């Protein structure tokens, strides 16, 4: 292990690139989450009705319908054929995320993300063990179970417990005991399973992962030759198994992070002091060779 690896995550990036560039996407992401939430809150709080409704279904400026496609899909398998408004809204959302990366929803929009991120921050601070780590595809199984339950009970089943819509609806309409569910997710991530909820269990994330399977917006490790093996990107990535194939690819292997699990959060771009990563589109196979590759790099990377 290099001395650099022992540095706190992101320290080197701050030193090399400055504070803003080392936190850019994190700040933009928080801003985006705040914007998406406040758009819904402007109405009830200040009487500015730009967006009405909730994340499950909304109406923007009185005309644009948006619908959560997973909620609508559950309704469909439960036996209700929705009206055109809801279908149009779901289609718009599906197309948007199919282009932008399904799980961009998770990192840029979802109101539970700050909760689980906070849990992870504290988890890190307290140096807790990573705990129960179910397989990544558990969430796909859960998604299947949710749809099956919807079909068998004839209800939109996940909405009975979905902490995402419950928190969002709670903030816009009134929380009730939904805060308890949110607290549960926080405690689960803190004590039971590191990055457990968003990373392993949430069926909404699983669904959006499927939606963005072939999405256009991708992170590339085009300058992977410059990687000095500090491991900061792995430490900061909520789905760090997506990095290796791109970063450790040899020769002409694609530098694109093509895993549908990638949430396009951009933190790897932030924390890399040598700017290995960048946002691009999926048809951009460029691999930049560094002018003077450090001779010891390949060995270090195997660490």
């Amino acid at each position, binding site marked *: 292990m290099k001395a650099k690896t022992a540095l706190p995550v992101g320290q080197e990036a701050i030193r090399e690139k400055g504070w803003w560039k080392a936190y850019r996407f994190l700040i933009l992401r928080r801003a985006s989450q705040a914007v998406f939430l406040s758009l819904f809150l402007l109405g009830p709080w200040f009487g500015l009705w730009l967006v009405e409704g909730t994340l499950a279904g909304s*109406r923007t400026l009185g005309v644009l319908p948006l619908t959560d496609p997973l909620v609508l899909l559950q309704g469909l398998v439960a036996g209700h054929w929705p*009206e055109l408004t809801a279908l149009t809204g779901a289609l718009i959302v599906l197309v948007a995320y199919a282009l932008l990366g399904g799980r961009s929803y998770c990192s840029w929009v979802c109101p539970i993300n700050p909760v689980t991120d906070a849990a992870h921050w504290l988890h890190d601070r307290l140096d807790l063990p990573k705990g129960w780590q179910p*397989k990544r595809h558990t969430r796909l199984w859960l998604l299947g179970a949710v749809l099956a339950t919807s079909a068998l*009970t004839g209800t939109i*089943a996940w909405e*009975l417990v979905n902490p995402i819509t419950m928190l969002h609806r709670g903030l816009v309409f009134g929380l009730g005991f939904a805060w308890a569910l949110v607290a549960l997710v926080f405690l689960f991530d803190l004590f039971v399973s590191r990055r457990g909820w968003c990373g392993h269990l949430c069926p909404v994330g699983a669904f959006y992962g499927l939606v963005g399977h072939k999405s256009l917006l991708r992170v590339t490790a085009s300058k992977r030759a410059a990687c000095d093996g500090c491991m900061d990107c792995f430490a900061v990535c909520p789905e760090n198994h997506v990095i290796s194939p791109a970063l450790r690819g040899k020769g002409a292997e694609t530098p694109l992070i093509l895993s549908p699990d990638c949430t396009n959060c951009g933190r790897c771009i932030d924390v890399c002091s040598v700017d290995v990563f960048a946002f691009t589109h999926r048809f951009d196979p460029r691999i930049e060779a560094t002018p003077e590759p450090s001779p010891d790099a390949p060995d270090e990377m195997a660490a």
Partner: protein
Amino acid sequence: MSPQRRRFLTDTARMAAGCVLAGSGLAWLARDARALPAEALRPPGALPEKAFLAACIRCGLCVRDCPYDTLSLAELGEDGAATGTPFFTARDVPCEMCDDIPCVAACPTGALDKGLTDIDDARMGTAVLVDQENCLNFLGLRCDVCYRVCPVIDEAITLEVSHNDRSGHHAIFAPTVHADHCTGCGVCEKSCVLPEAAIKVLPTRLARGTPAEHYRKGWEEMEEKGAPLVDGVIDLPDRLPGPGTDNLAAPGGFEPAFKLPEGASQ
């Protein structure tokens, strides 16, 4: 069996078991969610509860478009209705029965049925005068408030006059609900002057019985046809007690206490 195969099978079995467990928990909650409390009324045009829970995405647009702030979304653990679904409590804020039915217009999925175009056809519940013992009109007073405020006055609620046995020389104006016309808006319940309303809107399943299918109301069918239901039936005289019939003055018989009007068939 190879270790990989064994592992794959164990993992799959585990995952499946976990999902069945999670699914069952969810299904249990879903069953629970169907038990809508009697006070919680759905907005106009709402599909029957079971279908409603498959259709309502809990977006709250109906709540936003209700000009009287009648509707609210059920909060977890507080309101009893399935979390996030719209409902109203008549005694708090009743439905004002807008002509343009904005809540139905706002619904993106059809959980509130666009087929409802005339608000008078809405059936959110059925008003029932649940407590005749405390209803002022039943006590012989002229409160009449529920009757007066009813948006479908003289159709959904009428005042039926009967003799007041207590005073002996007054009338009782009994507020009487006619379910065929009652929309379940709840204005009557809201307006009842008693501390606890004597007239309440209940879900129709609680408010009403259903007629037995095998039971035919002969008098209605006969009126509709304008003639006896069976052709060529010989209408035999009813065997009434009295002179001219064959069952009187027989040993053990009795004389009638009344006289039939002249010309009545015997």
